[in-house]
């Protein structure tokens, strides 16, 4: 049976939205009868180093992360740089791990994560690895917040992707599209959302307001501390 190495690239470590989203994928992997994967958190000292060591021997690697400023977090790029020796040795190794990725972002639309997906497709080629695909999902923050029944459909599809990874070493395009959800808002939806987000009661924004209030800094929410030197 083939082995899976799960790498969590979230700087938050084990308590992260990325891990929340990877858990059903891991369950799906196991439901195929494949063995328990090794899970390593790159933010954890010691585990970062182990993730470099264990990379070449894994049959499949799943690397998940949040989208940070439209790309991978610096931590993940640091890890990828540490894989450079494996690019050079790729031609001599028979064993090359199949690579799958998961990117979850705060924005609802999948389009924000597509440039990074292009990068990962190329990264797999650079490492001489078969590419399983990239799971893209927006509104990653909502998964731990929503009641279980509202997440059920998403969890089912993420499990299916894990199962496909074990059986076919590839995510199906159809399943990836379902999980990605909204690629881009239709003009009607965009117009409606423009209105909705201009209201102070916009749902995701009221979430920020509550956090600001709790910290007694709501009145300072528009602070622009570095603007004093701006030219007039």
């Amino acid at each position, binding site marked *: 049976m083939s082995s899976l190495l799960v790498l969590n690239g979230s700087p938050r470590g084990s308590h992260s939205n990325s891990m929340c989203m990877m858990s059903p994928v891991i369950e799906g992997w196991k439901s195929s009868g494949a063995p328990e994967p090794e899970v390593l958190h790159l933010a954890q000292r010691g585990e970062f180093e182990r993730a470099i060591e264990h990379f070449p021997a894994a049959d499949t690697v799943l690397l998940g992360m949040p989208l*940070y400023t*439209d790309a991978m977090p610096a931590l993940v790029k640091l890890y*990828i*740089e540490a894989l450079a020796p494996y690019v050079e040795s790729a031609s001599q190794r028979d064993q090359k791990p199949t690579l799958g990725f998961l990117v979850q972002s705060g924005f*609802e639309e999948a389009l924000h994560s597509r*440039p990074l997906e292009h990068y990962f497709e190329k*990264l797999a080629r650079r490492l001489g690895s078969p590419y399983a695909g990239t799971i893209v999902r927006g509104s990653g923050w909502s998964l731990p917040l929503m009641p279980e029944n509202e997440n059920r459909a998403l969890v089912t599809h993420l499990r299916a992707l894990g199962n496909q990874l074990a059986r076919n070493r590839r995510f199906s395009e159809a399943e990836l599209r379902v999980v990605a959800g909204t690629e881009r808002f239709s003009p009607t939806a965009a117009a409606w959302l423009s209105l909705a987000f201009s209201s102070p009661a916009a749902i995701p924004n009221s979430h920020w307001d509550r956090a600001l209030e709790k910290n007694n800094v709501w009145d300072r929410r528009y602070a*622009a501390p570095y*603007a004093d030197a701006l030219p007039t």
Partner: protein
Amino acid sequence: MRITILNGDPQADSAFCGYADGLTKRLASLGHTVEEIDLRNLDLKGCSGCFGCWVKTPGECVKRDDSARICRSAINSDLWVLASPITMGFTTALLKRAADQAIPLLHPYFVMDGGELHHRPRYARYPAIALLLGAGADADNEDIEITTEIWTSFARDFKSRLVCAAVAGRPIEEVADEFIACA
């Protein structure tokens, strides 16, 4: 014009750093105020996704490190140059660390912008953004394209536009003129 150059090359004395220094000097000689920040010399603790800069100390990172210097310099410039060699197909982890810690420049609120969700601006104006890339033997045109695509998206999120992407090696005078013309 005020120009901030973030140099994300982890190695001093590289050909890329030589080129970036040359560009800094050239831009200064043209009468511009240029600050080149060598990121490798800064104390950058990295973004850990705590959201403190959005909900605890609005606009400022809760970590007391040199990221404030980056934010202050970038937001007060007209042109923000992100400079880095391409390693493993993308700009360095060091440059990304600085970019991750630029998130206090944005506001947490979501807004619709051009039919897409983005963050609300925190400042009245944002600098134009340019890329200076170092492409060694292990970087091909596809790597440059993908890197440019990602930073184009970054610029959009930072209420700006990627106005120019140059690869180090071309005549410095030519690249300097191009940066000035498009900013």
